[in-house]
């Protein structure tokens, strides 16, 4: 009997160990949220975005975002551009990996002005060697989790272009500088551009947002693309903490009604249109977002306490 007892003790200890081991392995999602480094500069390298004009396939360079005493400085340097062309770059909230690289512009006041100082724009004109750089300093601090990327465009509206939209440090996009006020005149270099965007290059700001925190997704407003009544990338898993703002967009090629269960929010999306949901995460649990007519789930919305 004593032997049996010893055996059982051994079994129980093993079970306890297994239990604790199981915990350790499933622990990753609960930690690391607030671990963003306070004032370390975040930086990234420019690379052409998918669909960028052929001529920009050699674009490279760096973007850096530094927070200091309540302010934010964003600087970029680029090479491989067209010579003597005006460019503009904006700070974005999202990742370069998104289908619309960088997502929306960073804004200090969300939904406010689309111009500096509410956004961070960096304008410059390339030199004869196709190089250029710009720096802009804002008196406000870009929140830890909102610096996604810097995206470069050709400067369409030369007169209003200055520099980065460095609002959100997630991505800095460099766009080709075409003057929006003179639509139809074409780009200075006469380059063909993707119909939807004139984005040229994007620099992912590594560490610019809380990659693991889930809160990052709140700010970058991920877009769920629906084609033929199915989410193209499968059911999206979005995770938020209670009290945060849940934000995401749905683009559909067919007219549908998007329904957020539990919260019971619904929006009609027209064929080819996009709707954005933004609401406070009040209800804890895991909720379905679905195409109401087809009863197809597109998002699994997880709200943690």
């Amino acid at each position, binding site marked *: 009997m004593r032997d*049996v007892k010893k055996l*059982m003790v051994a079994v*129980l200890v093993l079970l306890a160990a297994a239990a604790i081991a199981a*915990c350790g392995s499933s*622990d990753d999602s609960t930690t690391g949220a607030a671990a963003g480094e306070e004032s370390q500069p975040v930086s990234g390298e420019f690379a052409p975005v998918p669909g960028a004009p052929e001529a920009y396939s050699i674009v490279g360079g760096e973007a850096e975002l530094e927070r200091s005493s309540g302010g934010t400085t964003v600087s970029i340097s680029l090479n491989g551009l067209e010579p003597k062309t005006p460019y503009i770059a904006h700070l974005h909230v999202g990742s370069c990996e998104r289908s619309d690289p960088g997502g929306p512009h960073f804004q200090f006041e969300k939904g406010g002005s689309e111009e500096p100082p509410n956004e961070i724009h960096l304008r410059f004109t390339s030199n004869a060697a196709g190089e250029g750089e710009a720096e802009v300093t804002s008196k406000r601090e870009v929140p830890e989790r909102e610096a996604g990327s810097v995206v470069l465009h050709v400067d369409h509206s030369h007169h209003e272009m200055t520099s980065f939209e460095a609002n959100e440090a997630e991505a800095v996009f460099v766009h080709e500088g075409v003057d929006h006020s003179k639509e139809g005149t074409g780009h200075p270099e006469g380059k063909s551009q993707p119909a939807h965007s004139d984005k040229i290059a994007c620099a992912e700001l590594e560490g610019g947002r809380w990659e693991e925190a889930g809160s990052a997704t709140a700010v970058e407003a991920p877009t769920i693309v629906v084609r033929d009544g199915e989410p193209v990338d499968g059911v999206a898993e979005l995770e938020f903490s209670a009290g945060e703002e849940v934000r995401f967009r749905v683009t559909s090629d067919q007219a549908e009604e998007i329904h957020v269960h539990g919260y019971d929010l619904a929006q009609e999306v027209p064929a080819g249109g996009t709707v954005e949901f933004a609401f406070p995460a009040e*209800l*804890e649990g*895991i909720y379905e977002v679905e195409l109401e007519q087809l009863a197809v789930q597109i998002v699994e919305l997880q*709200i943690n306490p």
Partner: protein
Amino acid sequence: MSFLPLAHALSAREDLPVPAWLFAWAASIVLIISFFALAAGWRSPRFEELRERPLSEGLSRVLLGLPAQLLYGLVGIFLLGLAVYAGIEGTAAPDRNFALTFLFVTCWLGFPFFSAILGDLFRPFNPWRAIGRAAGAGFKLIAGQRPAHLPYPEKLGRWPAAIGLLAVVWLEVIYGSGGVILEPETAGVAALVYTAYTLAMMGVFGVEKWCQRGEVFSVYFGMFGRLGIFGTRDGRLERRRPFSAATSWATVPGSAAVVIASIATTSYDGASEGAFQDPMESVFEWIAEAGIGLTASLRITETAFLLLCFAVVALVYLLGVRGMRTVPGAPSLSTLRTGFAHTLIPIALAYLVAHYFSLFVFQEQAQFTYLLSDPLGTGTTDLFGTASSGVDYTILSANAIWYVQVASLVVGHVIGLMLAHDRALVYWTDYRKATASQYWMLAVMVAFTCFGLYLLSVANG
């Protein structure tokens, strides 16, 4: 391919996985409690006697008299009829139709929850029993004698109910999954088919006999009712010691299969979303590649895993029983097998509470508001002015749900240990040997409780 349990169709909401730290605490507490339970074991059985105390005769007459029985029966028949009618005639949207929520949440979960506290509540409301008894009374009136029945083959015991239980859960979580939503109409038709089957069986074996052995819902809900504190004897309502009525429950063959089926089905429903998801998808793809249709492949996969759950739960229990047999003075294997089956009832209940408590709380709001006012989900009826109400998901925080889940498993574990220890003292009059035998049952209980915790803590796919 996604595996969606019924809860999705009804509320499109799931519980968050229990966080790792809570899992660790709960598992540790379970282990510590288990050690103390062994050390501090009592030396003579305490739950084997019912110790019933009859309640006042007047109360019994009001609650159990013929008018009351008629009333309960009519209510039962009316609600069954309403569910069938709503299922067949009402909207095809699962969440807007009275039938699914009423059958699979209000009844399927409500009767176990409340019966476990109060005693068997289903028996008086059982619509089939009411119809059967009325038919029997009618027969006697016309023929002047009681209807004759075949003797029930006692070897079958509760096996028909155990198999029926698996079939009901199959319909609930497997037939209606993977894009083929269980439609209210299917549930309504299934209820009709089950009614015909049950009435036929009652005709053959007698109403009460079939309710005790083969009628799935009577057996299943009655099992949980054995934990409750009220019972009846000779038409008299009585209070009894909690859990003590369970001690005599498993003497009928096949009872162990019923309680094992209960644990297995709940585990399956939880695991198919989390722990089993990846292996299930592999098996599904493997079957689908063999050229079988998608829906069929999905159902085959899920059925296989449901049966696997049943086999594993049974195996763990039988291993524990086998181990007890090695303790000197042990009774026969079959005695042990039936003798300890009732100790799993609290575990089965704990699994139910842990997995479905939040669904029950949320979905009952729907049941008593819009589903009651607009049972067919037509959008044009509003019987009680609550057709446009919604479900308030804020009444339970994620934390509250976690604590209820973990607490139910720990409490179920403790009650199971108590009952097992008590039963061991019946077989081994030497309490030291009884305690030695309980190392084995303890291992079984710890395995079930930790498995239950594990299922709750695995993130949904």
